[in-house]
């Protein structure tokens, strides 16, 4: 008799709901009139995320934690990361809903007659909403997937929509399309590496599950070369997604070219999902082989921090600068991979959550600074913004201070808890390099503060647009979270502590 596999729908519900919402969004595109789509899509997207979060809330205390025949592990870390991604996506949707940012008709050639007509007709690509939801569903699956095939599927589900979304910018479309193509090509490349590594790991261990790989390593089963090749190639795929050096070169171009709300979404949510998966793979599958991979990851972590920090100094474009800063932050986060202990995990979870809010908020502010032809990302033209619009400049400064890890912002507590975890298992080098690169990163964040506040505005047409109510709420939430978690982080830290467990 054939027994149907046990799927545990309750545990998969958040992922399935988001997928369902995405499909509903596609249907809306097919049947609804152009004019009413944006509002409906926004409602569906937000509603889906809230519903998914509600279902996630229902399972957060549950004990039976594997689903879909052990290929998904809904454990503490998984739930924490899924929750974080859902909340941050909600905020990201609020930015995305400010639809002035997306191409009128993506299929029209930039600068063509078609495009002009589409703009004049007030068209808007509302497909961005279902695409976002598809990406979110992949992001929800990626950090909880516990076998190599599910991991790869999740990776593709989260990446493919992003490639498309990166190319949908309303202005400077060529730059945006170039970014999308670059992201796609390099992303496909890294996926191939990931798959290649997965094949070797299977060859080594005879198992597709992370648990099986771990037991194979512990039993010292087979040819170590296969294991090493497997670890290295799988890591390439993961490190590409989190933007670690030397797989970072796409980051500045894509961050710069993509529509700013999408950049924020990518910088926050993709990094969290990819980091979640990386942590799971290294903690669950690779931890018995730590002596083999630790030197590699240590080198990459140091390189990532230093290159991100130093290269950011030379940037003149605010989005590129934040891209390099996100690279440096990826380096800090790798300290948690090296830590291999609960406090490192706790630190990483806290770091990811706070970093997500700060990043979204910072990119949200960037969408507001404009001139007649759209967003202004050239830092030299941000000069004196503090005089024109003190509130916006102050909020942006707050985000920068948090990135720099100044006390009384969430970024400081995050850095502290992360480095504490790494130090506990003797990773002194990464901690020292980490604090020193923090000083380097502080330099370019502060340079922006100098430009905003201490330099006189030029007679320039740069203005801060009055944000829509949704954007306003989203930025306010990010700013408040950044301060509150800097002053009273206990609640989130304790939550992270409770959730900092993997099941095997």
């Amino acid at each position, binding site marked *: 008799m054939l027994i149907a596999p046990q799927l545990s729908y309750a545990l998969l519900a958040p992922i399935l709901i988001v997928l369902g919402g995405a499909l509903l969004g596609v249907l809306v595109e097919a049947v609804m009139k152009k004019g009413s789509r944006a509002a409906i899509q926004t409602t569906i997207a937000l509603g889906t995320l809230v519903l998914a979060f509600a279902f996630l809330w229902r399972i957060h205390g549950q004990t039976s934690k594997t689903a879909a025949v052990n290929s998904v592990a809904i454990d503490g870390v998984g739930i924490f990361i899924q929750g974080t991604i859902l909340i941050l996506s909600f905020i990201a949707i609020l930015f995305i809903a400010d639809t002035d940012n997306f191409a009128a008709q993506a299929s029209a050639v930039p600068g063509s007659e078609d495009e002009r007509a589409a703009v004049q007709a007030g068209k808007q690509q509302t497909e961005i909403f279902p695409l976002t939801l598809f990406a979110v569903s992949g992001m929800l699956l990626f950090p909880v997937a516990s076998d190599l095939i599910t991991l790869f599927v999740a990776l593709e589900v989260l990446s493919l929509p992003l490639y498309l979304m990166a190319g949908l910018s309303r202005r400077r479309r060529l730059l945006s399309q170039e970014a999308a193509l670059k992201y796609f090509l390099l992303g496909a490349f890294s996926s191939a590496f990931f798959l290649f590594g997965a094949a070797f790991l299977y060859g080594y261990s005879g198992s597709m599950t992370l648990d099986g790989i771990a037991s194979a390593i512990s039993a010292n089963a087979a040819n170590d070369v296969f294991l090493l090749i497997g670890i290295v190639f799988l890591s390439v795929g993961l490190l590409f997604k989190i933007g670690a050096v030397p797989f970072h070169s796409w980051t500045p171009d894509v961050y710069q070219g993509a529509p700013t709300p999408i950049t924020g979404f990518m910088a926050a949510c993709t990094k969290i999902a990819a980091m979640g998966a990386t942590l799971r793979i290294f903690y669950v599958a690779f931890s018995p082989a730590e002596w083999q991979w630790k030197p590699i990851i240590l080198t990459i972590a140091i390189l990532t921090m230093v290159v991100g920090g130093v290269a950011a100094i030379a940037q003149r474009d605010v989005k590129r600068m934040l891209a390099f800063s996100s690279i440096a932050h990826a380096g800090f986060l790798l300290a948690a991979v090296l830590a291999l202990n609960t406090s490192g995990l706790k630190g990483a979870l806290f770091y990811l959550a706070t970093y997500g809010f700060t990043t979204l908020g910072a990119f949200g502010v960037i969408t507001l600074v404009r001139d007649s032809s759209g967003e202004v990302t050239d830092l030299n033209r941000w000069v004196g913004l503090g005089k024109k619009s003190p509130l916006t400049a102050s909020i942006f400064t707050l985000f920068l201070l948090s990135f720099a890890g100044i006390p009384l912002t969430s970024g*400081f507590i995050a850095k502290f808890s992360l480095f504490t975890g790494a130090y506990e298992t003797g990773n002194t080098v990464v901690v020292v390099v980490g604090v020193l690169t923090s000083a380097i990163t502080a*330099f370019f964040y502060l340079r922006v503060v100098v430009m905003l506040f201490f330099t006189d505005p030029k007679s320039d047409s740069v203005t801060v647009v009055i944000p829509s109510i949704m954007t306003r709420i989203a930025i306010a939430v990010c700013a408040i979270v950044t301060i509150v978690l800097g002053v009273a982080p206990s609640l989130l830290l304790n939550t992270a502590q409770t959730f900092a467990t993997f099941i095997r």
Partner: protein
Amino acid sequence: MSLVTVLELVPLLGVLGLFALPKGSTTLIKQFAIGVSVVDLVIAILMALRFDRGNSAMQFVESRNWISSFGIKYAVGIDGIALVLILMTTVLVPIVLLAGWNESENGRWSPRVYYALILVLETMMVGVFAATDVFLFYVIFEAMLIPVYFLIGGYGRGERAQAAMKFLLYSLLGGLLMLAAVIGTYVIATNQIGSTFDVTALSSLHIDSATENLLFLGFFIAFAIKAPLWPLHTWLPTAAKSATPATSVLLLGVLDKVGTYGMIRFCIALFPHAAHTFTPAIIVLSLISILYGAFLAIGQRDINGLIAFTSISHFGFITLGIFAMTSQGLTGASLYMVNHGFSTAALFLVAGWMVSRRGSSTIEDFGGLQRVTPVMAWSFFIAGMSALALPGLSSFVSEFLVLVGTFTRYPIPAIIGTTGIVLAALYVLLTVQRSLHGPTTPGNESLTDLNLREKIAIAPVIAILVIFGFFPKPITDVLNPASHEVMTHAGYEDPQPKAGK
């Protein structure tokens, strides 16, 4: 709630009050801010009166959980050293606000912001001296940079943005090294006695000596940047030249003391063995600072730069006194911190008035001020005499104690240090001669003397310099038990003077 907490809260509430005041009433804002700082001063005096001098333990303690998962507490408490520094802070704030009545008006932002920044800074200055939780100390130590950064960058003169940046980067670098050391100490504590940042608990750790040395250096470099010790001092002259007089006073008079205070409270208390190991090196650096600061002060043409370099020399003395590892030396160093605070305040404030009247900060542009503006000239003269530690002014007592305390353990450094006094006489007297005496430099004939507000502001500072010069006992009585406690805890006994022949 401890009085210390009240002392911290009052300025913060004052900031809220400032923003509740109606728009466009600059005078009201100024009066309100001064009022708040005076209230704080009164509370501080009350606290000092209730302070038990005979008791060497922490007093006015308060401890509340803050971030429980790391064992971080909001924990404050003061001993004699912290008390006098807090008193100095609360005395200086109303004085600089009164003295710099018009400073807030040429800034980048409104006067309201200026006074809010100063009041926030006051909260932090009190908090940083009172913190007995290392994490709390670190947070305030770093967060304090932000208001100062905006005060220099927003209200300063000349290349203010660059000066502010240099100041902040230097301090951040030191702070981050200290962060690594804080984390290291915390992890060791977690392994040995559980998660805690309590400074007393941490001082009982057993740390192997290599680690201890590194942790010590993490703390020490941060503090040596803050209380600038050669070769980490270069940010100070730039900052002092660009900041307003009030900011300079708070920066050099109070904030830099956090560095020397931190050396006492953390470097020596937490890592006594490492402190012992590094003492020779630190004493050499102190001596270099004393001489280097003095020589560069002699060569300075800018009056604010001069004061900055004299301060570097004085910080050398303070560090020397601390690392002499005798209780006289430590009492002398602590007293020196207070006296330096007041004498620098007098110098910067009077220099600030001279500069704003003359429109130039070059020493040669002054001359013959004694005839034109006698009160201002006398004030500058007394402040200068205090800087060269003239007997009868308070700095003399502290410099004497530092040198005596050093001599009992390290005679040769004490002798070298003494040459610093000679050099001090040189740079002060030269400046006094150039700026106050001699023929009146053209352009100075019509300068006005201090007005009533300025006289009221400078009078208490001069009074303190003179009174504690003749009668330092109230302060030394408070300091002695605390210094003794620190040294005993670190395992040092004062060397017994050899019997005379």
